[in-house]
């Protein structure tokens, strides 16, 4: 729609100008440039967001989306360029400045305190005072109720955050931002952790917000949902805006091509490589004491060599606990056997040594040491692998060479292997982890959301790697919120609900709708 300057030529092919009325501009970024050592994250970016629009930003991993949003939210200072909010130029030094200008941001990783209530979480940092000292909970509760009702968020202020699911947590994050008076909302990959029906709910909420005049900017790698909800789409490639497109006039495939110049991947994998050799046998896995609610309740499953077992479920139903129990990170009752050998009492290191690869769901907390260079991160979790160590000693040269190999094979976009892991974009960090965990010919791969936050091109590449390894006999326990990925990649599907496996499906015949309803526990009562 707003096709000015050098962008004019290229947007014509992709967009049809629908400029009928001149509407108000909420945010205008002009010529934004941001450099990090070795990379230009944003190069002369221009972006115009209309008031009351849902504006999507898409682009491959490391394209500079998060950086741009952090600049708009005052977390990063641009090297060049101008930010205009509601027409007037602004300079943000801290997120506090952005908040005062009516801008709020929800980060991809939620930042709520588990052991506080929704109310406490929302007011944290901007507590209402009564007579200058005492906290005015009543006023806060009233205001939260008002906001929740006004936008149809359906948030109960008095429940503990640890007791609510991810979908609700997301709404609490949004409410927290609205509570601080935001009229412009930035959401960085808000749907990455949600299952389809939660995504639908979120989009309904977003539409509600927009009707009240709030402007939303969101980043997503799921192009279908972008096309469904966005009023305008900006495509960023290699740090610069390459197109402004009208969602009504493009297909997901065209959008993907604009982003990466490659086709949309399909996770289809029908020819079976399942053998009858058991790779992993889990029997009666239970976490939680007798009597109280168990986070994991008598879980039994088998994975054969060459088989991918998918676990479907709404986040927070025991997936994380299941994975950590198999990895030996969390104590549990029951037995675990790997390739015929009982490993129940083994330490995490011994399990990894025996050939279990592990892609954790939270890459920042569990997958990487952000303050260490890439090659040291290659060693992490593989402290006994030949390429990394010689006896007691670190094999610096070997680890570095193998890191270089991963960077090339998995297309990790980085200026080098000596940069800190924190300098990589989210998707590139994920690629590094996947590459590392697929190294050393693992027998079993525990993959929690292996392509979360990864762009469509990289997703296809990771799926290819998984398929090749599977054909060579790798057993995979796949946990994912992406139903297409689950159905397309798995040989068999089980559904987890409140810590128990409640249903199973053949992915060849199941529909996303059936899976979706089983995941919410609908099958249980029936």
């Amino acid at each position: 729609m707003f096709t000015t300057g050098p962008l004019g030529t290229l947007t014509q092919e992709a967009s049809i100008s629908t400029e009928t009325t001149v509407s108000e501009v909420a945010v205008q970024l002009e010529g934004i440039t941001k450099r990090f050592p070795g990379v230009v994250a944003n190069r002369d970016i221009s972006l115009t967001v209309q008031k009351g629009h849902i504006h999507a930003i898409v682009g491959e991993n490391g394209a500079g989306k998060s950086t741009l949003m952090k600049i708009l939210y005052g977390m990063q200072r641009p090297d060049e360029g101008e930010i205009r909010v509601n027409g007037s130029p602004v300079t943000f030094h801290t997120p506090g400045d952005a908040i005062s200008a009516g801008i709020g941001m929800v980060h991809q990783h939620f930042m709520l305190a588990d052991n506080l209530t929704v109310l406490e979480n929302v007011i944290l940092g901007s507590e209402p005072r009564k007579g200058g000292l005492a906290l005015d909970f009543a006023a806060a509760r009233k205001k939260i109720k008002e906001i929740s009702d006004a936008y149809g968020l359906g948030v109960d202020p008095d429940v503990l955050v640890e007791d609510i699911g991810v979908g609700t947590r997301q709404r609490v994050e949004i409410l927290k931002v609205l509570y601080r008076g935001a009229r412009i909302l930035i959401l960085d990959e808000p749907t990455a952790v949600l299952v389809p029906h939660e995504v639908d709910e979120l989009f309904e909420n977003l539409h509600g917000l927009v009707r009240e005049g709030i402007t939303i900017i969101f980043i997503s790698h799921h192009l279908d949902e972008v096309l469904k909800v966005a009023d305008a789409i900006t495509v960023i490639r290699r740090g610069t805006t390459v197109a402004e497109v009208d969602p009504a006039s493009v297909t997901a495939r065209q959008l993907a091509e604009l982003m990466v110049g490659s086709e949309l991947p399909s996770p289809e994998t029908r020819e079976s490589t399942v053998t009858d050799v058991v790779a992993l046998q889990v029997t009666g896995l239970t976490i939680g004491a007798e009597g109280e609610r168990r986070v994991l309740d008598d879980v039994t499953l088998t994975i054969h060599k060459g088989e991918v077992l998918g676990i479907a479920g709404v986040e927070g139903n025991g997936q994380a606990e299941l994975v950590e129990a198999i990895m030996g990170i969390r104590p549990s009752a029951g037995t675990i056997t790997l390739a015929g050998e009982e490993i129940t009492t083994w330490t995490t290191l011994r399990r990894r040594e025996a050939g279990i690869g592990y892609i954790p769901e939270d890459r920042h907390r569990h997958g990487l040491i952000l303050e260490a260079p890439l090659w040291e991160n290659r060693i992490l979790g593989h402290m006994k692998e030949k390429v990394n160590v010689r006896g007691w000693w670190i094999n610096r040269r070997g680890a570095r060479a193998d890191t270089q190999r991963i960077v090339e094979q998995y297309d990790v976009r980085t200026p080098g292997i000596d940069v800190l892991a924190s300098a990589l974009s989210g998707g590139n960090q994920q690629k590094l982890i996947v590459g590392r965990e697929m190294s050393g010919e693992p027998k079993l791969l525990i993959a929690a959301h292996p392509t979360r936050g990864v762009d469509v091109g990289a997703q296809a590449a990771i799926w290819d790697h998984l398929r090749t390894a599977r054909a060579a006999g790798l057993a995979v326990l796949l946990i994912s919120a992406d139903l297409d990925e689950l159905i397309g990649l798995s040989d068999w599907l089980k559904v987890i609900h409140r810590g128990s496996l409640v249903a199973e499906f053949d992915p060849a015949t199941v529909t996303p709708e059936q899976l979706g309803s089983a995941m919410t526990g609908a099958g249980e009562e029936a």
Partner: protein
Amino acid sequence: MSSTFTDRLLGRVRLSGWVSLAAPILAILFAGVVTSIVLALTGNPVLDTLTTMVDYGSQPRSLVLILNNATTYYLSALAVALGFRMNLFNIGVDGQYRLAALVAAAVGGAVTLPAPFHPILIILVAMLVGAAWAGIAGVLKATRGVSEVISTIMLNTIATGLGAYLLAQWAVPVAGSNNIGTPPIAASGQVPGLTLVPGSSLKVFGLIFLAVAVGIGFHVLLNTTRFGFDLRATGRSEAAAVASGVNVKRMVVYAMLISGGMAGLIGMPQLLGASYSYSLDFQPGLGFTGIAIALLGRNNPVGIAFGALLWAFLDVSANILGLHKISPEIVTIMQGVIVLSVVIAYELAHRYRSVAEQKRVSRELAGAASTPQKEGATA
């Protein structure tokens, strides 16, 4: 800005390039300015005082004293730094050192062995006692989750009491004074000093080489071994370490044992090189000096060496101030200001460097910038 201030403070994040040099130099200059102001405010001649200190501090006799003090400080700071690198705050180095020196002195005085074995035995005993005392805190943390800060502080107090009791049991009067001390160590157990500094008959501790070796060992252990990798990983992110199969509880115990073992060495240069007996005049508080020097040196063996030398220089040259009717406490103020300003200077330099680096990158990319932009536009 993604590393936290604490990470940088405790040396878990590397500071590379000129930052690691410029920051402490600026900080010391700044500390000099503050000290001058304090001197001026208290009515002392600024320039005269400083030149007197430098003159006195650079005399051969002072140089020997500086080297000897620095040896002790260096060992102490390394013991503290090892814990810091893993996020463990071993505040108990002081108690570990005193108890270790006492027991080692008693054992050394009670036995006679052929020359090389006698001092080795004493050193081993000291390391074992230091390790055991620190190990209590390690085990408490690993099994009961007791904060090592609390437990090591309490162990310090217990060490003082226990030390006084043991000394009373084992002590004999020290010849030529009213003091009591452990029976003197025979000549076979002593480590002869070295005449390193020409112009002074005073000898440098022979165990200065032990300190150098411990410094090298510290570097090798942390940077080239699996154990060191696990230790640094735990210090930087405990959650990631656990998920990667590091047995964090065991690491806590090992790290405390090693830190305590190193603490045990602190008293050895003095015991085997000068006093030959543990008595009440063994300097208390060395463990706390070690904390300050570890911070000064960013928990890095080379940085700590400079920190230890500087600290020792200030201590020694303070002695002259009394003669000039200037309170030697001025030096304590200076040491405090140095630590604070080094911490601040590192932080400022780090920030300045990030900005400068980005500017440099942008200059280098300025020429190339137009090309990829066109590339993007045609795609």
